[in-house]
């Protein structure tokens, strides 16, 4: 269970998140939508303790991670897997070494067992036989799949996705969405997907939250959000530019 209470965050004089509160139950799949630069990724990084809030609390299984130092956070982070927007693969390592990273660091397995787990996880993300490739040889979609394989190999309870389909063509985006759903259903994990891809949010989320003007503006099922008549929600869901921002 993840609970965020009255979270506030500023960078310098710029307020990014203002009094954010929500709760995510185990095995739930939540899509956080909002405009680019609206603080979605910042919110996600607070959930895993990569950023410290100016005020407020973040509770993971009833433990307040805001009060923890970096070493104490390591224990809590074993519950998480995170897929980064740019994949953030370790470029000095092969695909297999990237995927096996968490296993090697935290589990005492033989090389044969590690190789077996890596092959099975790469198979799950539809990238069999890519163990010896370097990250530089992979396409954007493949890199995100490897990032996902790295995040799920040690079977975390919660998987965070930061813009998993950004920069990908619609076909690859569709395959990534299916992959997120497959991971959610097979591993029974709690998923939090930050995205501004409405189609993706609708498909992967059991619940959708709209971050607008530094606050959670709307929070409901995909049906509630996508059939809402609220002007702000409608504008975002339909992808209509603000008249003031439209360049003629």
């Amino acid at each position, binding site marked *: 269970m993840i609970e965020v209470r009255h979270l506030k965050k500023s960078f310098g004089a710029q307020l990014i998140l203002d009094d954010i509160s929500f709760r995510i139950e185990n095995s739930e799949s939540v899509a956080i939508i909002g405009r680019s630069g609206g603080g979605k990724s910042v919110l996600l*990084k607070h959930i895993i303790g*990569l950023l410290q809030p100016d005020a407020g609390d973040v509770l993971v299984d009833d433990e307040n991670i805001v009060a923890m130092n970096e070493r104490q956070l390591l224990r809590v*982070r*074993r519950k998480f897997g*995170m897929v980064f927007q740019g994949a953030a693969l*370790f470029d000095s390592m092969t695909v297999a070494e990237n995927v096996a*990273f*968490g296993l090697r*660091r935290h589990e005492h397995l033989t090389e044969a067992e590690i190789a077996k787990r890596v092959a099975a996880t790469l198979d799950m993300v539809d990238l069999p036989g890519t163990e010896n490739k370097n990250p530089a040889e992979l396409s954007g979609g493949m890199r995100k799949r490897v990032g996902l394989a790295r995040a799920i190999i040690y079977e975390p309870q919660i998987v*965070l996705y930061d813009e998993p389909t950004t920069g990908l063509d619609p076909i690859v985006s569709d395959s990534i969405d299916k992959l997120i759903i497959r991971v959610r259903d097979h591993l029974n994990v709690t998923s939090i997907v930050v995205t501004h891809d409405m189609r993706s949010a609708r498909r992967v989320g059991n619940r959708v939250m709209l971050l607008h003007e530094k606050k959670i503006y709307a929070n409901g099922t995909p049906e509630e959000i996508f059939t809402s008549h609220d002007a702000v929600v409608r504008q975002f869901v339909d992808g209509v530019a603000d008249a003031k921002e439209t360049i003629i």
Partner: protein
Amino acid sequence: MRLNSRAGKTQACLLNLEAMNFLAGTWLGEWLAGLGRITLLAREAIASALTFKFSRRDVLYQIYFIGIKSQSVVLVTGAFTGMVLAAQTYFQFHKVKMDTATLAVVSVSMCSELGPVLTALMVAGRVGAAIAAEIGTMRVTEQIDALRTLATHPVDYLVVPRLIASNIALPLLTIESMCVGIAASYFVGVYLLGIEPTYAWWNMLKYSHDSDVLIGLVKSVFYGGIIALIGCYKGLSCGVGAQGVGRATTEAVVYSSITILICNFFLTMVLEQLCVILGI
């Protein structure tokens, strides 16, 4: 009495806060803050190293990168420093008929000063820059955040192996530089300048002491720590984008070099006195 003491403490705290506010945003304030952060990084790295959380494989790779890959620069620097020192010393000593003292001067200089300092400066240029660039690039491409999400402390994984490897490699490179410098000076002195080899060798052994080598090695351990810590710190705290990585790389080399030169003076003063006290 207790109230007075508490009031005194409060006043002292307020004065400290005022002093901090006064320094905030100034060059001195930034410098002091940076110094504080490097000290905290050093403390964290040493504490982590003592718990043996690092991977031996990573340490070996870093020893290879810092030690083996720095061979060419250290050999060339050591050899030519020894050669030019021998030639210059000979030209001055020859005027007062002290030719055979040339190698003694070279030996003492190479062991206690030039060997450790020049080796450290060359390694700072090559390795310090590489460490800052590698870790800086990892930071701007979110690889450090990825490490943290994989429940791995960046200090355990990135800083500790480099710090240990640097502390092992620098003394070895320094010994190599001393040997090559003395050998090169012997070659120049005896074969090019015509110094009588037996007396030159005898004088060198007479005036060079164990303490000179020991001081050089102790210094090199400190310099290894300085290079690794400043390189890692600059990488971990680098700004965004290619410009941030470029600046971190430059600053790592400049700050390491300046710190090495400043520390060299203080280490010389302290270690010489220590050798006298301990009778080494």
